């Protein structure tokens, strides 16, 4: 199973793009009167400078990894699953729902947590299949269907937080009552990182990587993604494979949402997805849709997210500058990619 061009070439491309992005951002920092070298140093030490920081980066890494893994499947099936953000939210909503249902039951916390995460995966999968059905049976492009469902999911979460699931005596958009500590995924020592979450994230990418690389299911999904018409004529039930792709991606996104509830915020908040859905799209794209690259790119984005907090603390710079860096990186990857294609075209008339 060769995925086209060799891996090192993609790595060189990403490296080149990252270099380009760094040059641009350095220029911007210099314009703002901040030493770029110091800024990057601070961001590095603020993200991987200590065990605690590294743990925080991994806390962000896990959901990004899960989301990007799921997106590898939908991308392979030729689908733009923009609804991923809503699928993360529905995962969180379903998890919260299950936890609320069972928190007073006399069940072992481990079982409750497992059921809750399972419910989250189910919620994400249902929401994704919904977007898929809109595409396959309703003729709604998955991009628009997904965007619409994102709004619905976020609206639902808000309504639940302000309404039925409000804290006693409180009406606030800031979130539901935190769950008792017994229903938190156990953390590693004093770190905020949960080993179980980490394991789930790693499992997600490994499973997806193996699925796409070595199974008939993965191969058929890829065939559908590359040429649905030919795949249909070759006897692959394309609709079913598209919906399976959606379901798998949604389940992984739902798991990310479930972990946001059980391992990070311990309650449902309006911004529970933390934007990881959209960020995951970038991660998957920048990874060149390769499972092997996803953990690294996701780690980079997570580190950027955490490390950029140093910008306002140390330099009094707005930390949205990290968004600029992310944006720059994406643009540079696209530019490098475009330049390469142009070069290829000219070299081979």
């Amino acid at each position, binding site marked *: 199973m060769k995925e086209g061009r060799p891996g090192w070439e993609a790595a060189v491309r990403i490296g080149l793009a990252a270099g380009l992005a760094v040059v641009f951002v350095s220029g911007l920092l210099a314009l703002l009167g901040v030493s770029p070298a110091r800024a990057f140093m601070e961001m590095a030490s603020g993200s991987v400078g200590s065990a605690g920081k590294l743990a925080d980066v991994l806390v962000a890494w896990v959901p990004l990894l899960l989301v990007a893994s799921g997106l590898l499947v939908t991308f392979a099936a030729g689908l*733009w699953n923009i609804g991923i953000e809503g699928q993360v939210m529905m995962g969180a909503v379903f998890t919260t729902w299950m936890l609320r249902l069972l928190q007073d039951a006399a069940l072992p916390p481990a079982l409750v947590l497992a059921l809750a995460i399972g419910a989250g995966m189910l919620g994400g999968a249902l929401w994704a299949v919904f977007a898929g059905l809109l595409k396959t049976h309703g003729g709604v492009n998955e991009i628009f269907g997904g965007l619409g469902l994102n709004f619905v999911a976020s609206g639902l979460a808000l309504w639940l937080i302000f309404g039925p699931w409000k804290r006693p005596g409180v*009406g606030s958009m800031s979130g539901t009552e935190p769950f008792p500590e017994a229903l938190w995924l156990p953390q590693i020592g004093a770190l905020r990182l949960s080993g179980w979450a980490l394991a789930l994230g790693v499992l997600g990418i490994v499973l997806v990587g193996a699925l796409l690389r070595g199974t008939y299911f993965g191969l058929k999904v890829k065939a559908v993604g590359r040429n649905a018409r030919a795949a249909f004529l070759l006897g692959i039930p394309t609709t079913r494979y598209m919906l399976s792709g959606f379901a798998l991606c949604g389940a992984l996104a739902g798991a990310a949402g479930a972990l946001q509830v059980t391992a990070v915020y311990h309650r449902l908040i309006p911004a529970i997805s*933390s934007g990881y859905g959209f960020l995951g799209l970038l991660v998957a794209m920048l990874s060149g849709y390769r499972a092997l690259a996803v953990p690294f790119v996701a780690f980079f984005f997570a580190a950027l997210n*955490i490390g950029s907090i140093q910008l306002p603390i140390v330099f009094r710079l707005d930390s949205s500058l990290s968004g600029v860096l992310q944006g720059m990186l994406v643009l540079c990857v696209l530019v490098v990619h475009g330049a390469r294609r142009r070069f290829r075209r000219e070299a081979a008339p």
Partner: protein
Amino acid sequence: MPRTHSASLALVLAVALLPGCGKKSAPSPAPAEPSAGPPFVFGLLMVGPYNDRGWSQAHYDAGKYVEARLPGAQMIYVDKVNPGDRPGTTPAQLAEDLVSRGARLVIFNSDDMKDSCLDFAKAHPDIFVIHASGDNAWKEGKDYKGLPNLVNIMGRMEYGKMMAGFAAALATQTGRIGYLGPLINDETRRLTASAFLGARYAWTKYRGRDPAELMFKVTWIGFWFNLPGVTADPTQVADDFYNSGFDVVLSGIDTTEALVEARKMAGTGRKVFAVPYNYVGACETAPEVCLGVPYFNWGPAYLRHLRAAREGGWQAAWEWNGPDWADINDPDRSAVGFAKGRALSPELSVALDQFAGELAGGLALWSGPLTLQDGAEYLRDGERATDRQVWYLPRLLEGMEGQSVAGP
């Protein structure tokens, strides 16, 4: 299919992920020269922008106040500490970032950070923690945790709100006062009720009107400030008030939408007013419609606790600091104040001073008979509310319109 669109979509995503392109947020002063003594770094986590002309800026200015008065004190801070603005972070995590930058004391400035603040205080017994607005250090409170490194500070804003309500009821021509409420909890209920008590006092005692003719309505937006797509839009809520016969809007939120809308209305020739909240300079946004602002002055209390943290003598405490009636606007002594606005006419100003004098003299508006909105008795005739009763006001008072608790 995916690859053909990928370039354009990636572009759209990239642009969508750029919130506010890297503006420099402060004319960053170099950290204060350590004039004397070893440096003492303290961290401040603010729920909103440090320059919001509201709640967060009041804390930021207090930090500056401490820096100026406590030799060697250095503030580091993170603002916009809320999951909407900083996805994927928690206040506890950001507090640790401040600690790794040398902070030995961290101030959490929002009720919204309560859970995270407790986590942090428990996990870091060696770091002093101040939570503005909490009750976890209050022995008589409902949620006492007994953490030795935790101090709760709150100002008795009830007085400021009474004065705000008083001014509003004097100024209103229509007898309709709107209250732009944030989220619903104990704190916001008691503050809203205080404003109502002040307003009713002015309406009945100073204007001699029938209390039934005074309409006092609260609309809650769902958070301390506008979170687009999440909360109700405060601009819209303020607009609705002014467009349905309300001519004074009191703000209970951290930002100044009520003032801005009042100025717009005044621009069309209507005689309307607003009373902002939190920050001493809030009226500057639209002085011509501002009756005044009840504000917090966190500086003196912070200075006291930081000095204790640095020099020894720190004690876990819950403080509910009142105004200094000698001069409620004394920056070094009064924890809450009321800055009069330009729209307050001289007669009203005199009346307000007279009211403040009454309060200083022991006038207790939080006294019976008072009935809750649902008809239950809150205070018997002649009974004065205890701190606990005021702090944990369970519902709005009879005579107020609006939700007491959230819910369908």
